[in-house]
């Protein structure tokens, strides 16, 4: 009986994920996401990341949704201030609307308008490593 109950739940759950990923697959994503370059003074397209969108309520962690020149979602990025990576803080239940993840990059960033403090970028790439070239420049 339990198994019979779980099956529809799983189907429902996966379909919700599929819808969410579909909604953000192409730029611009629906509200509450907003274009980062409209919120703070940054170039519209950031080399290495792409065109960024974020829900301002989720700053600084994000997720930031990053799109290539064709408006295709390339990655989901989290920006975690290094001062907040301590025993008393954590980042839980961050949204992950982008769907399948091919690989992950983690690297230090000195800061930029919007997230001024030094922080770590955690990048969930939705494209293969070769696909990163689409946002390189």
């Amino acid at each position, binding site marked *: 009986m339990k198994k019979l109950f779980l099956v529809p739940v799983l189907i429902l759950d996966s379909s919700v994920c599929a819808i969410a990923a579909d909604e953000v697959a192409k730029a611009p994503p629906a509200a509450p996401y907003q274009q980062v370059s409209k919120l703070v003074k940054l170039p519209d397209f950031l080399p290495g990341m792409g065109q960024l969108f974020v829900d301002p309520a989720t700053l600084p962690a994000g997720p930031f949704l990053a799109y290539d020149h064709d408006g295709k979602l390339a990655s989901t990025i989290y920006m975690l201030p290094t001062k907040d990576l301590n025993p008393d803080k954590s980042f839980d239940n961050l949204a992950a609307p982008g769907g399948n993840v091919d690989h992950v990059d983690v690297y230090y960033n000195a800061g930029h308008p919007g997230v*001024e403090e030094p922080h770590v970028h955690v990048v969930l790439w939705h494209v293969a490593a070769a696909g990163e070239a689409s946002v390189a420049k």
Partner: protein
Amino acid sequence: MTIARREVLGLGGGLVAVLSLSQRDVWAEEVVEIRMQGRADGSHVWFDPIGVLIKPGQMVRWTNFNPGNSHTTTAYHPANFGRPLRMPESAKSWDSDYLLPGESFSVTFTEQGVYDYYCVPHEQAGMVGRIIVGEPEAHGGWMEAVAASRGLPDEALKAFPTVEEIRANRTIR
């Protein structure tokens, strides 16, 4: 002391070529160029050069050469966000506001002294610079050690080249 102006320059080969030509030596008498730079992944940002010695009346021009970031050149002065005074009291402060890639901002310095400045979004990352104009007195009261340190992040304080270094070398990178 200053006339500040904002310019938008192309980041194409033209400007780079001009900077790399021997004309640079000629320019040095008139305009001192400071680049706002950063690694491609944003892991490090800086002014280049970080310290310069100039003559009274010389112009300094900052240009953002960092394609993935925006920067400011902002004097340490109470007029700018209540920051501590780290420049001659009688001189006028400046703040470029955010410069996108390719944009420039210029200031002409007429009063002798030591001027410290920073990049608003990158002060915590140590993106600061120091300009010495003329031959200010060694102990002109412009920057007592305790007052100078107040309110600045450690990364910024560590980054300033010393007055002696700048005087000795004219340009510090």
